[in-house]
């Protein structure tokens, strides 16, 4: 079992932090994550001054599935249809490195330091997206009052949320299919509001672009990591060569070994850092906003759905008036639809505007941080390289 302490490197942890926790009345963080076989148990820590909570402080254990449950219940709540629902954290991608996780659980001795560091980094990333999800909820004036959210934070036992069974999984899949088909239909609906028309076009375009950029960034960082790995191997091999060599130049080579060790640090580690920081600051950002934009698109979909409903209710009302039958009911229905649509439009407009501001702030923050880190690493590498060259030149 391995626990990851968050405070080890705060700077790195908040890759997508969006200044969410500026409200001290409800502060949530995940200080610990416990790796148990293929499951990750997150320790969710809450500090609050809100009267709706019975205690000022909570610390509970939650699994990834609990987060998904929370997300699903929020999505299903009609009340929140006009809000951008914070995207659910992605399932920890431990399928591939499951074996490694296993090892991680057994202890560090069975894996190399590098592997362990990599795993730890992976885990930190997972913890972080889960944390961000909760913080997004807690910082939102509506979501923070959500009953299920409170239960999620307060209940000190296992939530034992039912895992989705196959039928439900299929249902979810089917719902998605309907949604996509609907999206096509709805996109045919004439938009009445200029703002939403623009927003729709922008989000559709942006979403495909950012998806593409994310994929490319992932590829880039992956190959960058390969390069770092190669350096690691090479300097290791150079070291071996130097150690094995027992010619007259052993002395010379021993000096070299020293240099190579330095190189391993400077080139391999720094390249690795560069890659992972780029991953953390840029790729993660893009990834997160790919999901967030999907959430925004979902909002637009819900609104478009409401619009379609409203139009349908209008038609129904016309029909009813023509036939002179059930006019009052149709009127009532039409009124409700209009109300719902207006409400969605109103909150949607607000949400989308704040979403835009949030995105810009997040991009700014991450880009600055990434740039600063890249500069820092490159400078580090420069000084190490200069040192190595001097050592080599002097002997």
């Amino acid at each position: 079992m391995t626990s990851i302490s968050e405070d080890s490197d705060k700077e790195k942890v908040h890759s997508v932090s969006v200044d969410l926790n500026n409200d001290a009345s409800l502060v949530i963080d995940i200080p610990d994550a416990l790796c148990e076989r293929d499951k990750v148990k997150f320790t969710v820590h809450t500090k609050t001054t809100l009267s709706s909570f019975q205690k000022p402080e909570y610390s509970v254990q939650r699994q990834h599935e609990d987060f998904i449950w929370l997300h699903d219940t929020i999505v299903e709540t009609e009340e929140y249809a006009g809000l951008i629902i914070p995207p659910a954290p992605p399932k920890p991608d431990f399928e591939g490195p499951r074996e490694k996780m296993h090892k991680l659980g057994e202890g560090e001795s069975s894996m190399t330091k590098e592997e362990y560091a990599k795993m730890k980094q992976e885990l930190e990333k997972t913890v972080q997206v889960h944390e961000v999800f909760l913080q997004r909820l807690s910082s939102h004036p509506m979501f923070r009052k959500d009953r299920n959210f409170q239960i999620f934070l307060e209940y000190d036992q296992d939530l034992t949320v039912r895992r989705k069974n196959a039928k439900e999984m299929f249902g979810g899949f089917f719902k998605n299919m309907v949604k996509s088909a609907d999206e096509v239909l709805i996109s045919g609906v004439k938009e009445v509001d200029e703002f939403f028309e623009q927003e729709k076009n922008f989000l559709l375009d942006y979403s495909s672009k950012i998806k593409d950029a994310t994929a490319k960034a992932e590829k880039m960082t992956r190959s960058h990591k390969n390069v770092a790995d190669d350096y690691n191997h090479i300097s290791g091999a150079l070291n071996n060569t130097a150690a094995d060599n027992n010619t007259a130049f052993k002395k010379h080579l021993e000096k070299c070994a020293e240099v190579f060790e330095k190189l391993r640090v400077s080139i391999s580690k720094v390249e690795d850092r560069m890659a992972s920081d780029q991953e953390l600051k840029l790729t993660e950002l893009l990834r997160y906003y790919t999901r967030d934009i999907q959430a925004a698109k979902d909002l637009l979909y819900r609104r478009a759905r409401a619009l379609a409903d409203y139009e349908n209710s209008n038609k129904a009302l016309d029909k009813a008036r023509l036939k002179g039958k059930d006019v009052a009911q149709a009127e009532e229905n039409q009124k409700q639809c209009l109300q719902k649509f207006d409400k969605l439009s109103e909150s949607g407009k607000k949400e989308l505007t704040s979403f835009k501001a949030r995105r810009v702030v997040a991009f700014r923050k991450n880009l600055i941080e990434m740039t600063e880190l890249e500069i820092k690493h490159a400078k580090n590498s420069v000084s190490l390289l200069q040192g190595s060259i001097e050592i080599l030149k002097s002997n």
Partner: protein
Amino acid sequence: MAASSERSPPPFPDSEEPELLEDSDEGADAFTGTSISEMDSPSPDSTKPPKDIFNEPLEDIFSDPLSNINSEPQKKVDTKIPSPSSDEAVDLFSDPLDDDSEVVSSPEVQNPMPDLLNEPVQAPKSDVLGEPPVHKNAARQQDIFEDPPKGSSKSSSVKKAASAELFSDEDEEDLFKELPKVVTKKPQPSGPPVDVFTEVKSDVKVKPQVKDDPTDLFAEEALTAPAPKPSASSSSSRTNGVHSEEHDLFSEATVELSLDSPRNDRKKKDAVKPSVSAPVAPVASSSSKAPSKTLEELEEEESEDTFDLNISVTNPEKVGDGMNAYMAYKVSTQTSLTMFRSKTFTVRRRFSDFLGLYEKLSEKHLQNGYIVPPPPEKSILGMTKVKVGKEDPSSAEFVERRRAALERYLQRVVSHPSLLQDPDVREFLEKEELPRAVSTQALSGAGFLKMLNKATDAVSKMTIKMNEQDVWFDEKIQDVENEEQHMRKLHVMVESLVNHRKELSGNTAVFAKSVAMLGSSEDNTALSRALSQLAEVEDRIEQLHQEQAANDFFTFSELLADYIRLLGAVKGCFDQRMKAWQRWQDAENMLQKKREVEAKLLWANKPDKLQQAKDEIAEWEAKVTQYEREFERISATVRKEVIRFDKEKARDFKRQIIKYLESLLNSQQQLIKYWEAFLPEAKAIA
């Protein structure tokens, strides 16, 4: 036998006598040919470690002189000091000569030889070392000098002694430790066990100074003969048996040495070689024991004086069309060496010319144990692409890669002092038109023959089981093997680095495009601007990665590829040495058989055929000495070459690694610049 008679003088301690006498008896037996089986018996006497090296019948003969040498110091130190040293010296020298004649077993020679050798050896030595306190050392020294000339069996005995010394045999060390006293005036300060030989060397040095400019040559020679065995000097006494003076012997040697020295015309040396071999030997014996430390010092000196010769291979150009097309390269030389006609000259050469040069060089020099730098491999695939494809980037890369490899190849050739002297090298660099090298074509008849030769070589390599007695070679061969393994592994890793970096470069380019697109759809103006700036930065970084990939390849990967090839060449030298050893061993076996025949004839009392058998023995003895000398020479050369190679390699690697690190440093500095330029853009997002 020589040993026994040497020991017979009265002052020797009694205890040693019986054994000695026995030895002498056996020796006599051996030469009268009565009992061959007995010849082997003395081997138990010789308790020195290197004994098994000579597991041939000669062994017993060796063992005797060896024990002689070993026992001598004790004797002298213990018993002889008070005795008048001059007498001893005389004794020593007159005695061995008798032995010598015995060994040669030709009665006619017996008489003249003692006279000849007696005089010279004694006279000069006593002159030089006239002072009484030094005398005993002098005497000993004479021993050493004297032993070699004593006939083949003797010489090997000395060798054995030498190897014994290598193995730090106590007795031997004693013997040699004494000597530094005599040596004090000599310039080379070195470890006690080796001093004898440095001393010997310097002795020699003083004498020939009158003749050429031998000091340098000597230094050279010392390098050529690092083999720890005083080489077969036996025949020198025979071939040069007419020497009236020791002086002569040495001066001769130096003259020959000057031929041997790489600074001199190799051709001449080759021409003289057969006759040279004998006189070279004694000097080799003297210098061969020079301590490796001194050797290295000398090496250092040699490497200091760098020659002024710059070679560049440029302007690859496709000549002709279709499958008959070939690439021609401009080979430009810049030099101040007087051996060339002018200071700068340029020729055009095609790839097969480079291969042809290698063929010529390896034919001439490989057998002597020189490491001939191998040219880049033929690449039918790469060349076909060049021939067919027009402006394919991969073929451009191939051409550049080959161009650089050819340049490095030529630079390696000319940086070898001996190869630089080769007329073919000069011709290659200077001559306007070269005859077309045909034998380099892979599918030609010559190519087939080469393949066949390689196959037989490989087979014979497997069948030869060399009993390596030389620790240095033993370790070195293992080292080279390990090193090659390491290099191969490293090479694979660096190749993967090159590939991964190319991949990274490609992915960065794609990402840059994608970010640019994202920037164009971004509706926040500042963020949009920042994103397109980011795209530009990523574009530049892509360039950086690309350049770095080229650096990875040319300064790192190609360096390793070169050295993998060069290590192959080093192994080739070891194989040549092994072949020489095999030839020598075969000759020894043959000699043994001939001796058996002679013994049988003697037993059967057939005097009519005896003479023929004796002639044959003499003939094979000559061959054995010749082959042995050749083996020693090749060992010495290979050793010198490998030391040189190691030095070059260390220098090369250091230079290239520094160059590589500097390229990395440069790209990191660029990276800083790019990101620092981007930072304000990121901060400007509002």
